[in-house]
């Protein structure tokens, strides 16, 4: 796990303060489950110690050959998942615009009918015997990543009497520091369901919501195979250490 994946020197600066007004607040009554699960007292601000600026790093040795191919990683040999075939690609960046290399990204989603493979799932849409719904990859030297999947379907969920989630893919992202840890969701360009969703609407700023909408990219499609969606993800940046801890003469 301590395997170094980049030639860049390790980053030891503290992270930029998190802009909490850009994120959803904890208490969002339109999303009912948040009501009893939202802390109500002020958070204790802590400028990063070693405990926050360090974080786990994962080596490519954890990855299996099909981890980045949800069309095939649960399918029987010679078969594949049903649904519109897509490639999702993009870059993992930090707030300074620099690519984040060697970072683990995990993703999960419903199948093309909007059904999750989970025992707590009650939607009547059919399971696809060839679709599990999970995948993962590690970013390249410039922060780039890509995976293949099928476009998930929208699904109803118990909140209001008739709430539906827009089609989405869940993302879990590691940076290089534990305080960069982030979970978010990717939506699809042009989906009218996005703006009706109580979970999307926990985000106060329209521009912040648009940051989670992947763009259709016909130039990146694989002809006669899969369309492509571009989704960049941004993690918190780090303060530069260029004038810190530098010995005389260095």
């Amino acid at each position, binding site marked *: *796990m*301590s395997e170094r994946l980049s030639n860049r020197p*390790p980053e030891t600066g503290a992270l930029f303060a998190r802009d*909490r007004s850009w*994120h*959803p607040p*904890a208490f969002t009554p339109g*999303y009912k*489950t*948040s*009501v*009893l*699960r*939202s*802390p*109500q*007292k002020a*958070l*204790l*601000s*802590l400028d990063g*110690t*070693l*405990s*926050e*600026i*360090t*974080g*786990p*790093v*994962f080596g490519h040795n954890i990855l299996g050959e*099909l*981890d980045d191919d949800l069309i095939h990683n649960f399918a029987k040999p010679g078969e594949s998942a049903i649904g519109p075939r897509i490639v999702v690609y993009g870059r993992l960046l930090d*707030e300074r*615009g620099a690519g984040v290399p060697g970072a683990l990204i*995990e993703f*999960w989603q419903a199948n093309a009918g909007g059904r*999750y493979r*989970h025992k*707590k799932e009650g939607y009547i849409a059919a399971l696809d015997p060839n679709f*599990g*719904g*999970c995948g*993962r990859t590690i970013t390249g030297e410039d922060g780039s990543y890509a995976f293949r999947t099928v476009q998930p379907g929208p699904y109803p969920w118990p909140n209001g009497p008739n709430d539906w989630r827009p089609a989405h893919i*869940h993302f*879990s992202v590691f940076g*290089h520091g*534990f*305080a960069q*840890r*982030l*979970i*978010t*969701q990717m939506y699809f360009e042009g989906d009218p369901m996005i703006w009706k969703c109580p979970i999307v609407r*926990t*985000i106060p700023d329209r521009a912040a919501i648009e*940051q*989670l909408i992947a763009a259709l990219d016909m130039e990146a499609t694989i002809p006669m195979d899969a369309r492509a969606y571009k989704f960049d993800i*941004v993690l918190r*940046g780090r303060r530069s250490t260029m004038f810190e801890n530098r010995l005389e003469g260095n």
Partner: protein
Amino acid sequence: MAQALNRLKESPSQTAGPYVHIGLTPNFCDITGVYDDDLGRVMVNDKTSGERITMAMRVLDGTGTPLRDALIEIWQADAHGLYPSPSERRGAADPNFQGWGRQATDMDTGLCTFETIKPGRVPFKDGRLMAPHINIWIVARGINLGLNTRLYFSDEETANAEDPVLARIEHKVRIPTLMAERKGGTYTFDIHLQGEQETVFFDI
């Protein structure tokens, strides 16, 4: 007008939702054959140095009901106070210790158990030693942005008394919300999302 700083905004968070297990602990939710094992399930092996401990955690909502669909990740130093991270410049951490663990809360009881070692002390930014602690990150359905807190050990009274982070908690009555209680080799730690005993959460 001045020059633009050209900074990007962090991607806004969205809840991990009720099916977080599919992505992060697929074997736990019976999606087998994709990954050999769930990442972060095992933190130690028989060569890991340090005192073996078990941590039994729960996350409780505003009614005191344990969450049965939460996911907890922990990050901690090794027995000598070193993190297994490229950003750790003070020395090499124990190669037999993972430092990072991930567990889902039990779907019936809400209990979440980590088998690990007691961490050593890590310096604060000014060089003073922090008390042994474990960094915790909690996500679940209904949690819009992952919650950060710390677990301290109630039997480390001397170290806790001089810990520079605990010292910053204005209302001292809230410090016990960060203390795990020891019973034999097991520490229990209840995280209260709301209410009189609301755990101190951090903006880190």
